[in-house]
C-alpha cells in the first residue's frame, strides 16, 4: 500500500516536469515566454539572409494532428541544402488549442531555417485565433525577401459564417498595391479562392487582385490535404495546393528573378 501511495505521489511529482504542470482548461491560451511574436522573429531572420540570384523555400500545410510526420519532415528539410525558409499554409492545429500550436512549434523550431505560419480554419476553432495572435502575430501580414513580396492572409471565410469579413479585402488591396516595386510576389493563404469554404462574394475581386499586377508568380494554399497545381483562371498564375503532413508532401519552390519552379516532393 505504501508502495502504491509512493507510486501515485511519484506520478504527481513527475507532473512538475510536465509541459504544463497545471492545465486550467483545454481552451486556455498560455504560451511560454519564448513562444510569442514567432512570425516577426522568423521574418527578421529571413531579412538578415544575404541577397542571392535565386532562393528556395518549402511550402507545407496542415500539420494538424500529424506530429510524427512533422518530426520526419523536419529531418527531411534539415537534410536539404540551400533552403531559405519554410511556409506553413495553415491548419497548424486540429482543435485550435494553444497546446497544439506549442507542440507544432516545438518541432518546427528544430528546423535549421526559419518558418512562417499562416492561419487555417482549424486554427480559428475555440480560442485558436487568440492563440495564433499571441504566438505568431497578425493574421494578415507581408514580408519581402530577395526582391519578392509575400502577401500572407486569413482566407478562412467559413469560420466567420461567410459574413464578408474574411478575407479582409481592403487589407489585401493595400498589400497588393505596391507590387510594381518588386521582381515578383506570392500570395499565401490556407483556403484557395476556389475552395468551397472561401466566401464566394470575394472570389472575383480576390483573383483579380492576384492577376492585375502581373507580378504574382504563385498563389500558395493548403487545406485540401492533396497536392494540386493548376491555372484555374487561365491567367498564367499557378495556384498551388500542398498536401497535408499525413501525405508527407512538401513543395520545393525555387524563385529566380523572373521564373519560379515548383517541385512536388515526398519524404
Amino acid at each position, binding site marked *: *500500500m505504501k508502495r*502504491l*501511495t509512493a507510486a*501515485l*505521489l511519484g*506520478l*504527481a511529482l*513527475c*507532473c*512538475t*516536469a*510536465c*509541459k*504544463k*504542470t*497545471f*492545465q*486550467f*482548461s*483545454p*481552451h*486556455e*491560451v*498560455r504560451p511560454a515566454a519564448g513562444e510569442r511574436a514567432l512570425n516577426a522573429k522568423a521574418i527578421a531572420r529571413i531579412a538578415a539572409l544575404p541577397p542571392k540570384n535565386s532562393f528556395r523555400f518549402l511550402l507545407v500545410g496542415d500539420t494538424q*494532428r*500529424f*506530429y*510524427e510526420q*512533422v*518530426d520526419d519532415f523536419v529531418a527531411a528539410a534539415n537534410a536539404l541544402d540551400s533552403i531559405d525558409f519554410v511556409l506553413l499554409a495553415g491548419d497548424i492545429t*486540429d*482543435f*485550435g*488549442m*494553444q*497546446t*497544439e500550436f506549442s*507542440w507544432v512549434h516545438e*518541432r518546427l523550431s528544430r528546423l535549421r531555417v526559419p518558418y512562417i505560419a499562416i492561419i487555417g480554419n482549424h486554427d480559428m*476553432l*475555440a*480560442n485558436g485565433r*487568440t*492563440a495564433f495572435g*499571441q504566438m505568431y502575430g497578425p493574421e494578415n501580414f507581408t514580408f519581402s525577401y530577395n526582391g519578392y513580396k509575400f502577401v500572407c492572409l486569413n482566407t478562412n471565410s*467559413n469560420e466567420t*459564417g*461567410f459574413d464578408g469579413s474574411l478575407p479582409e479585402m481592403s487589407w489585401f488591396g493595400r498589400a497588393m498595391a505596391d507590387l510594381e516595386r518588386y521582381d515578383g510576389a506570392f500570395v499565401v493563404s490556407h483556403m484557395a479562392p476556389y475552395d*468551397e*469554404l472561401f466566401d464566394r462574394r470575394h472570389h472575383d475581386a480576390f483573383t483579380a487582385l492576384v492577376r492585375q499586377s502581373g507580378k504574382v508568380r504563385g498563389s500558395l494554399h493548403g487545406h485540401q490535404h492533396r497536392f494540386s497545381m493548376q491555372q484555374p483562371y487561365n491567367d498564367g498564375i499557378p495556384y498551388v495546393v500542398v498536401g497535408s503532413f499525413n501525405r508527407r508532401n512538401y513543395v520545393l519552390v525555387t524563385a529566380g528573378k523572373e521564373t519560379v519552379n515548383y517541385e512536388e516532393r515526398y519524404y
Partner: protein
Amino acid sequence: MRNAIIKLVLALLPALGAAAQDSLPPRRWWVPDGAKLQFAGNIGFLSAGVSYNNRRGNLEGDFLYGYVPASVGGVDIHTISSKLTWFPVRPFPVSGLRVRPLSAGVLVAYTFGKQYFLFAPKNYPYTYYDFPTAMHFGLFVGGDATIAVKSDARHRWGLYYEVGTTDKLLISYVTNHRSLRPSDILSLAIGVRRSW
C-alpha cells in the same frame, strides 16, 4: 442545449446516491455530502462545487463551476463540470489521517461562449468538424487524505490531488505516441475537500 445539459447533470446526481450512515438520519437526496475547491485539472483555474457519495463511500460525484480569468488563460473561461470518482482501495489510517491512496475518475465539462460549439455551426456546407469544442471529457487518477473534525466521522477536512488528461490531448497522444510524450498530455490538479 445548455439547459438540457444542466438538467441532465442534475438528473444524474441522485443516481450516485445520497450518503447517510446507518446511525445517522438520512439526508434529503439533494443535500450534498461535501464541497470541494480545486486548483487546475482542466476544469478551471479554480473550481468549486458540491459532492455526493454513495453509502459505502467508494464512489463520489461532483458538480463544479470553474473559472479561468483572462489574466491567466488569455480569455475568460467559464466551465461547468461533473466528475465521478471511484476509490477502489479501502482507506487506511496514517497518523490520524484517513488516506485513500488511489482514486480513478472521469469528468465531463461544458464551457460557455459563442466561440465554442457542440455541433458544427450551420454555416458549414457539410459535416465538417466531427467533435464538439464546447464539451470535453477527462480521465484522472489520484488520491486523498482527510482528517476528522468532529466526533461524527462524516465531518472531515482533506486534501486531494489528481493527475489527468482530456479527450483531445489523449487522442493526439494515442495517434502520435512516437512523437508526443505522456508528460505532454498529463497535468496535475490539487484540491481541498470538506465533507459533513
